[in-house]
């Protein structure tokens, strides 16, 4: 068995209005503190937690956040080196970094490569300033192009951008312009997410007050179909509902999630999956650090999946993939439900698999709900 690692970097310079991720600004953690102060011993804590993980060989490592690119490459490199020394890496080990286009320099990029990173993903979100403003993002859209060019020049073999669609005030034309801007870049991969309004965020409050109005589902659906169409014409095929890649550039770390492989999440709030068990760490970085240094358990909660839940998860995740669902996962009554969806053009049958059509991908959760749980 192999074991992937997710490394959570719970820091951002500023919290974006739509974000409910487990991330903190230095000021939130400690009044008047700098990033150096709050993150100082964070890597030490992560390395201690690492000792609690199994020692299987590692096919992928993913640094997410937060903003991992806020930390010096050497700090992140310590984690990679420790994993390599302890577990060993496969020869083609994929090591990804989530990066903010604003906090990147050519020098930093070279250092990331040197410590072992071979894949980088920039948070682009949109090419339209008014959309970025609504999202509360600070970066200048022009910086994305610079960052991608620098990353390629530095030698990153696989480059991705993240996009968000369905922001209040974003038209289909806005989205098309964003896509054209993204696809003009020298990238290998795109992730695109429909904006989700999470409770407790600034965005949720703005919508509740009526300051912003969420686009309707029809527009969201059109936006999805547009990205799917444009990516395919550029040679980027969808391999999961929200992910498109040139051949050989699918994110193997994420594919591991959808194939229910084993992974270990390092850091506060990080989730792990070992065989049929899912567990996750305490959420707050300070609590996390205290517990780790005190030698205490940092697991907040865990769940042992039943065989039925495992099967449902396999369906829930598998149906999102281009290769589709294996028919052998499905019982006759589930096939019966799927038959009407097939009649209505939401899915196709290919040999031993059920595949979603583009319209089907848009209602994947509904289909899953009808046949599982």
């Amino acid at each position: 068995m192999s074991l992937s690692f997710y490394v959570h970097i719970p820091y951002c310079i500023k919290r974006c209005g739509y974000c409910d991720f487990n991330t903190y600004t230095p000021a939130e953690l400690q009044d008047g503190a700098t990033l150096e102060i709050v993150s100082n011993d964070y890597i030490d804590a992560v390395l201690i937690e690492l000792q609690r993980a199994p020692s299987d060989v590692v096919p992928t490592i993913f640094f997410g956040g937060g903003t991992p690119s806020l930390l010096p490459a050497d700090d992140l490199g310590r984690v990679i080196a420790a994993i390599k020394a302890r577990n060993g890496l496969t020869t083609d080990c994929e090591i990804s970094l989530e990066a903010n286009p604003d906090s990147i320099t050519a020098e930093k990029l070279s250092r990331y490569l040197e410590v072992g990173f071979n894949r980088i993903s920039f948070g682009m979100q949109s090419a339209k300033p008014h959309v970025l403003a609504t999202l509360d993002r600070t970066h200048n859209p022009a910086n994305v192009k610079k960052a991608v060019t620098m990353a390629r020049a530095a030698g990153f073999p696989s480059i991705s951008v993240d996009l968000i669609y369905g922001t209040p005030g974003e038209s289909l034309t806005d989205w098309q312009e964003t896509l054209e801007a993204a696809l003009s870049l020298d990238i290998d991969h795109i992730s695109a997410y429909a904006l989700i309004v999470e409770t407790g965020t600034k965005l949720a409050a703005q919508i509740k007050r009526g300051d912003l109005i969420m686009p309707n589902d029809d527009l969201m659906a059109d936006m999805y179909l547009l990205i799917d169409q444009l990516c395919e014409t550029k040679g980027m095929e969808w391999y999961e509902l929200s992910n498109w890649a040139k051949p050989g550039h699918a994110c193997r770390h994420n594919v591991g999630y959808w194939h229910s492989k084993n992974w270990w999440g390092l850091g506060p709030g990080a989730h792990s999956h070992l065989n049929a068990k899912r567990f996750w760490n305490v959420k707050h970085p300070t609590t996390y650090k205290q517990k780790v240094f005190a030698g205490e358990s940092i697991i907040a909660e865990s769940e042992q999946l039943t065989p039925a839940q495992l099967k449902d998860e396999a369906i829930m995740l598998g149906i999102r993939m281009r290769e589709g669902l294996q028919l052998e996962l499905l019982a006759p009554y589930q096939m019966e439900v799927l038959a009407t969806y097939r009649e209505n053009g939401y899915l196709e049958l290919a040999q031993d698999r059920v595949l979603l059509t583009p319209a089907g991908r848009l209602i994947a959760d509904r289909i899953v709900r009808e046949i599982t749980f």
Partner: protein
Amino acid sequence: MPAIPLAKAPQPAATKPAQIRNFCIIAHIDHGKSTLADRMLGITEVVDARNMRAQYLDRMDIERERGITIKSQAVRLPWRSSLDGQEYILNMIDTPGHVDFTYEVSRSLAACEGAVLLVDCAQGIEAQTLANLYLAMENNLTIIPVLNKIDLPNAQPDKFAAELARLIGCQPEDCFRVSGKTGEGVAELLDQIVAQIPAPVGDANAPARALIFDSVYDSYRGVVTYVRVVDGHLSPREQIQMFSTGVRHEALEVGVISPEPVAGKGLGVGEVGYLITGVKDVRQSRVGDTITTYNNPTKKALAGYKDPKPMVFSGLFPLDGADFPILRDALDKLQLNDAALVYEPESSAALGFGFRCGFLGLLHMEIVRERLEREHKLNLISTAPNVVYNVVMDDGKQVRVTNPSEFPDGKVAAVFEPIVKSTILAPSEYIGTIMELCQDRRGTLLGMDYISEDRVEIRYDLPLAEIVFDFFDQLKSRTKGYGSLDYEEKGDAEGNLVKVDILLQGEAVDAFSAIVHRDKAYSYGIMMTGKLRVLIPRQQFEVPIQAAIGSRIIARESIRAIRKDVLAKCYGGDISRKRKLLEKQKEGKKRMKMVGRVEVPQEAFVAALATDADIEKVKAARKASQ
């Protein structure tokens, strides 16, 4: 003191008719009947101050909260008149105060020789009071007009004295003025009851005849039957017989209420009290029936007995299908105490298993539902109430329709619907808007009279179906709450009625069918299809919603196919979260009903059919389960 200690007062079974006065109080809700009754209990000292509580005689929570009497009461009050110094027994028979219970009111009135007409002198007489007043006058009762709440700052006793005088044909100065709240005038009123209301007349030696004017189920004692003895005598341990059914029972206990039950030696001519036979079901002891003795039965029943006839039908369905057995048991139990309640199991493709229930009217329906929910912790959905239609087919066959889904498909020659004679009382400034409402509801104007300078009585014949459909709410809102309504049955009349079906994807949905006037079919169709278009979520295919009369489509909407139902992100930590979300949504799916291939949320049924209160309840239940 005019009060007489109970022990020294004339005793049951040994009170001469000449000493007895049987009276009731006719009043509208909140005109102060219960307060006046409390005051009478206090002044006659049958309840001492220490044990007094407000609305002493109202037994059920619902009665107290709503301030209405659902069941009648009979209390024996000893009283020494200050006019002649003699001892009397006053039997105060309380009457239910709502249009649905006209028959029960009429039986209570039949047990009395006189009535106190109690009117709030800040509000004036209301339609139901007027109707009951007419009923009392038809029964030849002596009416004592009484203006209550004279202590209120906005009281207008002179104005309403004139109004009452005109109605009953007396002089304004004959109207008695009291304050139930302060007690002013109440002792004098008791003296007037003695002086004005005739003593009961009956033949003590004739075969026993007693009128049942109420019948209440008590979980410890079984059915308690309230009676007024007309002739002869009822004694404990005696075999008695119900005239209508011929069924024989033993009178295990005979007593009076004063105001708690006191078992005694029996009841003689003119007396009012209760008897217990051990039966468990009020339907065996029906209001209006005559009780006689088995050994010496009367040949002639007291006049006026009627079987209770449900006028309004509605489906009651448990929100949670698993509660069906609880609902069944609850209805069985409730029926023990409510001879007018009828029900039979009903299954709706849309709402699952429930009961088709028949009620005397809307209030009766509301009370039953509230008791089911409160006393049995049920969460119910009730379908839009409808009346009973009589459908005559071309071949002469007749079909009684209590549920639109039973409306026959074949060639219909005629449809008959119940008509009621309604009386509306309101300030005259609202005449226009009331007439507009009644015309819109297919009313026929019968007449209009000013009952005082600025108040009118408007009489209309109206189809009961129109009243059942939010008429009362409309009347109240159009008259700023001042309008009041009463109605009585007036038989059936032919109506130009059609059944409108609502079709989802070509399939009729039973719960949405309605019988409406042909002129209103189109607007009903538009309204319902429009409502459903909003209420039914988008499906995996386009869903046409149609309204149809027979095979003719009269309105059409469509719900476009769903386009998006997916969460874009699904990484490590999202997986558990997403699984849990899907599990929860799956719970929500259980509240979906499949209509053909269309999923319809229960909320849609409720919102399309039921009251605002229902809608709120479903929302609350949904919230609680999230």
